[in-house]
């Protein structure tokens, strides 16, 4: 499951642009992962310029449903 590290996202949308299944929603200052759609390919985690996304539930992070 992809998680967003709370309060660290800059809302730049790079993850949205590479998401192959359109599973990331971005507003002015709000980002959320649509977990039902997400295929856990992890490329959003790699491409994030400030390392805000995580797939590891043991790391700091909260889900935004």
């Amino acid at each position, binding site marked *: 499951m992809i998680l967003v590290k709370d309060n660290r996202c*800059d809302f*730049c*949308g*790079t993850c*949205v*642009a*590479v*998401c*192959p299944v*359109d599973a990331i929603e*971005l*507003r*002015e200052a709000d980002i959320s992962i649509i977990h039902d759609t997400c295929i856990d390919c992890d*490329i959003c985690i*790699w*491409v*994030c*310029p*400030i*390392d805000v996304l995580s797939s590891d539930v043991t790391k700091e992070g909260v889900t935004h449903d």
Partner: protein
Amino acid sequence: MTDYDVIVVGGGPAGSMAAEAAAKQGAKTMMLEKDRDIGYPVRCGEGVGATGLKKFIDPDPNWIATTISKVRMRSPDNTQVDFGMQDAGYVLHRRLFDYALANRASQAGVDIQTRAYVDGLIIEDDSVCGVKYQYMGENRQLTSKIVIAADGVESRVGRMAGIRTATKLKDMESGYQASVGNIDVDQEMIDFFVGDNWAPGGYLWIFPKGDGMANIGLGVSGVHAKNHNAHDMTHAFIKKYFPKASVLTSVCGGIPIAKTLKKITAHGLMLTGDAARMVNPVTGGGIITGMEGGQIAGDVAGQAIQSGDYTIEGLKDYPQRWHKSEGKNHETFYRISQAIEEITDDQLNKIAHRLVKTPSENLSLLKIFTAVAREKPKILLDVTRAFAGV
């Protein structure tokens, strides 16, 4: 009767140019911007070529930070190759620049709404007929004949209409930039660093912004981004080379270095700027190309409103005119960028060692190209092929 003839989603340079061009053709036009401000936050290195810019707007000292006349390229081992520019460049204050373009659009009669987050399209009979958006927590909608999506790298409007816009990881640069103060750099020079140690699959840049300030940023290819974080690399660079500099602003963002999307129109819809992947794949520059694409989109939209045909057929001049003006160059640049990608750090160093022996005033593009070709003959073939289109 629709609320508007044309609705432009996104208030960056491409959006403002599109809206202005549509309004000038007599179309009743609205531009929606998701953020609170036009022009902010600035997700951009802010460098442009003077000739390209002047095609669309007269340079104004209010939004020009510095005028550039020199380029420095640095190889992985920090060998410096200096050369002059045939065309001058500018580093912009994008926030003020975007304001100026939006203001010009509004003077042409465009209505503008900020804080308007488009979260859906109105689609009837396979044709886009308007947008749904949120304004201050309130759901609203506006009907239109044509929607122009200039909603940036993260564009979702195209996807809402079924156009595949997702960019491959290898065609996306993961970018980060700090605008720093207390830095002593040549105010007329842009400084590029190429090689895996600076920015794997991309480059690092220093663009002067006047008054002891500069933009320092880099883009890492998506395929290298798994192990190279743009934020960490930028700050490590600043700490090492400019320890006294202070970070005044920092931004991150994706730079799409893909080919323009194959499909940039649907019934009642046009995509432009970063949303259509109109960024130059070699330089990563997207301001001028976005303005060009936006202006053509707006112009064609305005004509389609007059003719009454908003289908793909009625909008067909748009992809054609884009291809003729910039699109075909982009395909060439894309092929060159693929060839450059294969040059190793060792080869880059050798090329730089060869070039550095030539005085900068004698350094022509041909000399640079010859040096590259000597080190990597295959690139000669790739570039020739790219220009020949085979």
